């Protein structure tokens, strides 16, 4: 099919924008944890970009997007990108080169397992991390992405996910909950260890994530036109309203509006609107952001404070709960006026879509949660998951990487 230069430019740009989100995620997380573990998180996100790019090139793209007879997992015809068209398009994205589509999707495959780094921050061994993200990609992300985006069985049932609420945020969010449960709490779990060591760094990370998210959501239109325009404004407004809810809630609870709170709320709003960005109106997104703001805020109170599950950076709430709500919102307020190739939701006379969306969410949550538990238990049995208590106290930066975030000539910590 014909390549459209405008569409191609936008998707090429969006590829870079989503790539930027990977180090941005690292900055966001590193700023919110103690300095002795900050490099380990930056290392996990940056090296994850390397490891998972290679994995996607070798086998990921073909497992997700190559045709499959049963809709379970793609074939191997595009391994190592062999045969992925450069001068023509794939029918997933009819206006852009096949390799551009494949590489844009590479960035999603990179960032999804890395979202879980927020859950296991401060206690996972480096070698366990290395194995974990590869196993998680192959056994959870690739199949799930194939089912929803690669014309697999969930897509055939009519499950919609614009930019990754089911495939990315539900699976990684529930995976984070599982990872936190399997790993257990950090030593001295409590206020003493929840010290954001560099909030400005976290704000830079959040700002870069927000910026990059335009590529994530509006880029998922795979074209440069009204659909991308809608996805961009829905992303912007949902992020703003979710951030506003967090601003007000933190203001009310502690009498002072919280910087770490407001950036977390904005990210929750972006995660929440992701699946729906190309299917719902900006007016719906306005309210979706508000709901996501409340749900993620109280989700953290429930999971971290009440249940004392040490999901260190609250990925299960900020991404998981938000992604689930956004994915279900498609079943309620999606409108084919916004996207003629998308579904109508309950409010537009198609009640069945809500059930279909719920099925997609349940499948992603079960696979993300259960699959993560199995992968982590196997890694634990073979090479071990958690650093030694002494190493955890010293910090992962020097014990896992032999480097320090803020070295100075006046000495090193060990």
């Amino acid at each position: 099919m014909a390549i459209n230069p405008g569409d191609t430019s936008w998707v090429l740009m969006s590829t870079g924008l989503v790539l930027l989100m990977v180090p941005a995620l690292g900055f966001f997380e590193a700023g919110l944890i103690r300095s002795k573990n900050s490099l380990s998180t930056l290392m996990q996100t940056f090296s994850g970009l390397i490891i998972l790019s290679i994995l996607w090139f070798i086998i990921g793209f073909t497992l997700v997007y190559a045709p499959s007879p049963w809709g379970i997992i793609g074939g191997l015809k595009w391994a190592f990108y062999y045969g992925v068209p450069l001068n023509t398009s794939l029918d997933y994205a009819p206006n852009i080169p096949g390799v551009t589509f494949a590489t844009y999707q590479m960035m999603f495959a990179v960032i999804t397992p890395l979202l879980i780094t927020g859950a296991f921050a401060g206690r996972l061994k480096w070698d366990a991390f290395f194995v974990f993200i590869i196993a998680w990609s192959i056994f959870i992300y690739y199949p799930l992405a194939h089912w929803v985006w690669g014309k697999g069985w969930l897509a055939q049932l009519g499950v919609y996910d614009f930019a990754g609420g089911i495939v990315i945020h539900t699976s990684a969010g529930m995976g984070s909950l599982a990872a936190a449960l399997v790993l257990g709490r950090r030593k001295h779990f409590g206020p003493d260890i929840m010290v954001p060591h560099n909030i400005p760094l976290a704000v830079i990370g959040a700002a870069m994530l927000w910026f990059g998210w335009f590529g994530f959501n509006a880029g998922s239109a795979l074209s440069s036109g009204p659909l991308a325009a809608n996805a961009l404004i829905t992303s912007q407004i949902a992020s703003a309203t979710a951030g506003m809810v967090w601003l007000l809630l933190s203001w009310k609870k502690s009498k002072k509006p919280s910087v770490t709170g407001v950036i977390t709320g904005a990210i929750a709003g972006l995660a929440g609107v992701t699946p729906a960005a190309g299917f719902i109106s900006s007016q719906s997104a306005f309210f979706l952001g508000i709901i996501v703001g409340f749900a993620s805020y109280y989700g953290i109170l429930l999971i971290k404070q009440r249940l004392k599950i040490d999901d260190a950076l609250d990925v299960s709430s900020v991404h998981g709960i938000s992604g689930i709500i956004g994915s279900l919102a498609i079943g309620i307020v999606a409108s084919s006026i916004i996207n003629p190739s998308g579904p109508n939701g309950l409010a537009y006379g198609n009640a069945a879509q809500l059930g279909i969306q719920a099925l997609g969410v349940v499948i992603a949550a079960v696979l993300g949660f259960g699959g993560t538990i199995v992968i982590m238990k196997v890694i634990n049995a073979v090479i071990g998951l958690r650093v030694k208590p002494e190493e955890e106290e010293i910090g992962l930066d020097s014990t896992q990487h032999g480097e320090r975030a803020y070295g100075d000539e006046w000495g090193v910590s060990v």
Partner: protein
Amino acid sequence: MKKVTAYIRSQKALKLKEQLNKAGIVAMTIADITAWTSYRKVTLQRRGIPVTYDLVHMAKIEVYIPDDMVDQVLKVITDNTRTGELGDGIITVSNLDQVINITTLMKNEDAVHEP
């Protein structure tokens, strides 16, 4: 009154703070310090190349206590910081002439109670 100063591994400071508090200490100084010894070196890396340092960050914890608490406090410190490996640090105990709480203007034992 005595001053007890402990130079310990930084990562033990959090635990020691809690345990000293359990033993009845209600205030202390906790400082990041740099220590040098001729015999303890730390190897980290830069771009894959090992680099050895002889200046090492440690924590300094200082408490002011009545004379009869000295043995107990020394035991809490050693119990909670000792690994037996090189680099566990040292403790010093010294006499104080006077301790005065600026808020309450109370002296000595009364100066280091909870207000």
